[in-house]
């Protein structure tokens, strides 16, 4: 990715003063959510701070937890170890619990194409390969999957003004264990820029030739 573009994006976000994910006035996380839902054709996006967080959120969103078994074709060894830590068993037959795509600079312009044939209830998109640190997203068309996955994150879909309260929760949404899987707005802004620039060639320099 062009350093000039990254520098511009970082400076822009820092100038706003909003670098915390639970600020109501943050615009970077919703911006990346909108871009991902548009490019994948899914209705909802859950942003998280790593690939494993996204796998966890994809499962928690479907109510899958410790002691359950999922179908997943040929999971890699690392995913197998992580699922074992979650207490989730794996079998290779059946409808996959989630589909998985990993993006990097070579395929960042093909997110829509790469996910077009995905049919699982949740789509895990690993954004770490774009170069801004661990980052990922879960995409889904199911509002309940989205709501439960958000609740896995401490604060989830809520912010400093609309903090989650017991009155707002319905029984099916009560979280169990929660992690701070929240993505940083600065990282989200860079990821959004990378995906946008991948769709149209980046300007190599700020100077006109």
């Amino acid at each position, binding site marked *: 990715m062009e*350093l000039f573009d990254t520098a511009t994006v970082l400076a822009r976000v820092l100038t706003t003063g909003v670098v915390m994910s639970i600020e109501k006035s943050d615009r970077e996380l919703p911006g990346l959510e909108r871009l991902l839902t548009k490019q994948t054709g899914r209705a909802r996006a859950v942003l998280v701070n790593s690939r494993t967080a996204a796998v966890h959120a994809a499962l928690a969103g479907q109510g899958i937890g410790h002691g359950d078994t999922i179908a997943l074709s040929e999971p890699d060894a690392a995913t197998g170890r992580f699922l074992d*830590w979650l207490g989730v068993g794996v079998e290779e037959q059946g409808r996959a619990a989630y589909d998985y795509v990993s993006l990097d600079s070579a395929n960042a312009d093909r997110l829509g194409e790469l996910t077009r044939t995905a049919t699982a209830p949740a789509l895990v998109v690993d954004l770490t390969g774009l170069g801004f640190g661990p980052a990922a997203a879960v995409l889904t068309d199911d509002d309940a999957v989205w709501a439960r996955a958000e609740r896995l994150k401490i604060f989830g879909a809520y912010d400093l003004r609309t903090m989650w309260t017991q009155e707002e929760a319905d029984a099916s949404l009560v979280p169990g264990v929660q992690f701070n899987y929240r993505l940083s707005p600065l990282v989200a802004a860079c990821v959004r820029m990378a995906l946008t620039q991948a769709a149209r060639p980046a300007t190599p320099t700020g100077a006109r030739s």
Partner: protein
Amino acid sequence: MITDFPATPLPLPDPAELDSELAALGGGAMIPKAARRTLFPVITKEDVFNLMLAQRQAPEKVVADFAEAYRSYVGAAHALPTASGTSSLHMALVGAGVRPGDEVIVPAFTFIATAQAVVAAHAIPVFVDIDPVTYCMDPQAAAAAITDRTRALMPVHVHGLPADVSALRALADRHGIALVEDASHAHSAKVGEQVAGSLGDAAGQSLMADKNFPLGGEGGIAFFATEESYDRARAYLERHAIDYGMSWVAAAFGASQLKRLPYYDEIRARNAALLGEALHGTGLFTPPHVPDGHVHAYNMYRITLHPEAVGLGDIPVFAVKEAVHELLVAEGVPAREWQNTPIPCHLPFQHRDGFGNGYPFTLNPGAVRDHRPEDFPVTLGMLDSTLVLCRELRSPVEYERILRYADAFRKVARRPDAIRKLVETRDYRRPYDKAARLG
């Protein structure tokens, strides 16, 4: 351009405003609406430039350099940078030797992440009450909760005041268990010359952008006293393939913030002292207590109300607090409750689904309690009688702003009649009778 630069300067305080009508009753507000935004974190050209430079370095080096610089500042033996405070606490517990089904004693008053980190380690949080003066874990309550399955004590340096580490250290040593700090509020806090994060066998600390020492978004760091515990935590991450990695973007921002942390700490301490002096003069309010030899970091500033001092002793303190809260907010001082019920009364610890199907609570059913708020009377007493300033003291606010905050407390304390009238016209509920809030 969207910028955080203040739109309007705050006028210097005017003594006449102290005697003017309360804002809630139609008078002018001590902090005008146009000047209420409190900037935090403070972002400077050094932060921007540091991020520019970081783009040209290997990401791993940016994160490692940051972690080493902060480890050195804290004085801990080993540091593991993580994606969040919760993950840092998880790693601190694992490094300290906590295993599935173990019991970890935590205070009932803290942020929910303290207890969720215990569950993340597949262990069971055992909740105990707090000290009535410091609001940190009560060592006697902790001692009473120890069983043969207890593996660690995890006190929280609440709001930035170190817990009673010497008593808890002695207790841990007596039982052969670990002392793990939750130092998430306590950047630069000290006991003597020792910095929070280096006081226990291990520590976890949030570095999210709303903490005294902010990274560029989300982040955390775990500290370890021994190489063995550090290696244990790293091996755990590898064995379970968990990605708790810190982004270089967050780390680069923190590297330049770290250089300015002592400056901001000094401003916070100055502002806390200035406000404390003003509160002592009101009768109605007292500032946080700081034991001798402790340095408070003032991530939050919890103020205690004394209704009897202004002739309101016949009214329940929680009702006085609610009325005062309303009056202060109208004056432009965004005081908060910051927690309104003990953590074990939040839904995740009432339902206890954990990772699913009750795990890990099912590993040790004997450690599990169906708690009610009344199980923690000291916590309830604190929730009834205190209000909190957060960013207003955390941010190195301008001198005129801290003076105006002080005047707002003076102005409200001078009007017990208005407080009484508000209580009579409202139907205030005790904090823990309302829906639990995360902060």
